[in-house]
């Protein structure tokens, strides 16, 4: 469906993307993961045909990305891009018109989208009176007006309450079930884990890993335990496996987590260590990202 081939982009002296290549299958929900400033938004803007001065190629259905293919793409920007002085239906109509919808077709589609984003009751209210979550939903709605095949969502849930976030997740799942391709960029990795089938990790403009979420978890996730307490001798712990410092404690990767936990308890008893936390850690994408880049997604 979508092929990104050797894409690079510079902002004056800063390298935003460096030789990025990957493939997105039709109908998949594809996660783009990386910390702030990793190059996700730049890549999203390239895919949305907003940025043109890049090197490399982007193909949609084996055809090179051109402005004419914009109709296939719906772009949900990170910023809330709405006309505050217009109503919800006014904003939807504006974006619908930009994609050539007119008359009855436009009206019907706007009503349909209002239902999808659950804003029917506020259809005629000015956007300036909306909550952050409602604006986010309308922001998504505007990108759905022309029924795009591909939906690009750039940090679509930033700064909203959990209720609105859950509502957006339900919406995304519905869009996914319609068979549309979703490209979802976020630095909230739990969202990507929840929604996406495939994922690419980007750090400092470079693709560090890509693949199906389950495959990556199988490939990289070594069983590990988290230990927190005082005082813990780091050198002693290293005899049980690889140790990295995290969240005020240590992550110990081992192939025999239960055995190591038993040993750790014995060790703590013997050395009068006050143990605050000792738990088996489920493998997460965040840990994979951390082990690949040595940096946290959220700083």
């Amino acid at each position: 469906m979508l092929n990104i081939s050797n894409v690079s982009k510079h902002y004056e002296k800063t390298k935003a993307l460096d030789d990025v290549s990957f493939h997105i299958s039709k109908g998949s929900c594809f996660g783009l993961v990386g910390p702030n400033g990793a190059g996700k938004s730049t890549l999203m803007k390239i895919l949305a045909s907003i940025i043109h001065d890049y090197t490399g190629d982007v193909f949609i259905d084996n055809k090179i990305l051109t402005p004419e293919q914009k109709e296939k793409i719906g772009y949900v920007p990170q910023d809330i891009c709405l006309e505050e002085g217009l109503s919800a239906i006014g904003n939807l109509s504006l974006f619908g018109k930009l994609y050539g919808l007119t008359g009855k077709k436009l009206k019907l589609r706007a009503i349909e989208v209002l239902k999808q984003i659950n804003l029917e009751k506020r259809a005629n209210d000015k956007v300036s009176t909306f909550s952050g979550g409602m604006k986010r939903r309308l922001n998504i709605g505007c990108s759905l007006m022309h029924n795009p095949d591909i939906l690009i969502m750039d940090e679509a849930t930033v700064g909203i309450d959990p209720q609105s976030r859950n509502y957006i997740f339900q919406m995304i799942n519905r869009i996914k079930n319609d068979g549309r391709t979703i490209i979802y960029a976020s630095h909230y990795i739990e969202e990507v884990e929840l929604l996406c089938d495939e994922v690419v990790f980007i750090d400092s403009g470079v693709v560090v890993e890509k693949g199906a979420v389950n495959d990556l978890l199988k490939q990289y996730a070594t069983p590990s335990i988290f230990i927190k307490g005082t005082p813990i001798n780091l050198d002693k712990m290293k005899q049980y496996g690889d140790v990295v410092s995290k969240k005020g404690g240590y992550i110990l990767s081992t192939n025999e987590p239960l055995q190591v936990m038993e040993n750790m308890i014995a060790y703590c008893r013997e050395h009068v260590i006050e143990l605050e936390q000792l738990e088996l850690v489920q493998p997460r994408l965040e840990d994979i990202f951390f082990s690949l880049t040595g940096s946290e997604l959220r700083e």
Partner: protein
Amino acid sequence: MRAIMITELKKNLQDKGLLFWMVILPILFTVLFIAIFTGNTDETTRKQVIVSIIPGYVVMFVFFIIISMVSTFNKDRDKGMTARFASTPLRPYFYMLGKWLPYMFIVFIQIFVLLLFGKIVYNVPLEQPMVLLILSIFLTFTVTAIGLATAVMVKTENMGLAITQIIALGGAMLSGLWIPHDMMPDFMQTISYFLPQFWAHQAFQDAMAGNINYSDLFQTLLILFCIGVAGFVLAIFRYPVFLKRSVT
């Protein structure tokens, strides 16, 4: 483009600040200055002052539309709206045109209202209405084209505000909109020939009095048109930079 144009027009019609800047303030200034300058004068001088002040203030205040144009373009750029529109099939230059056209309409209405006010309240002559209409259209084009160029060139709203003051007030001072042109120092008179305000003011005064000849009118229209086209060309050349700023 039509969708953008209608949205922009709706936004502006809802904006009470724009109504104040474009209509109420000019009327207040006109009334105030006419009262000051005609306090102890005979009827002939009074009429001369009024016939000079009304077109002068019309020409001066139309330039304040640049503030609104700078504000709307800068807000769109900083909010990400320009980039958002760039992701749609709307061609970038149609976005610019869609944003620009409502200001043409607003400035034209402003000129109409201010001249009508002059006619109703001070009974100023409007001897050549067709000429005044054509002049108004050309002045509207020139002012909004300068506004468009300023809007896509400035980095911040404050910078736009400062430039507008220079263009509107500096231009008014140098073009003889505040004091009679022939009473200005020679160097200022020379500078005024390069400013659209001078040409527009002279032509408006002559058309109101009914003694503009066609060669003078044609010269004025040509000058206003050329300045407008220069503004447009500048805006078109600077637009990619403006779009880039919106994206980053």
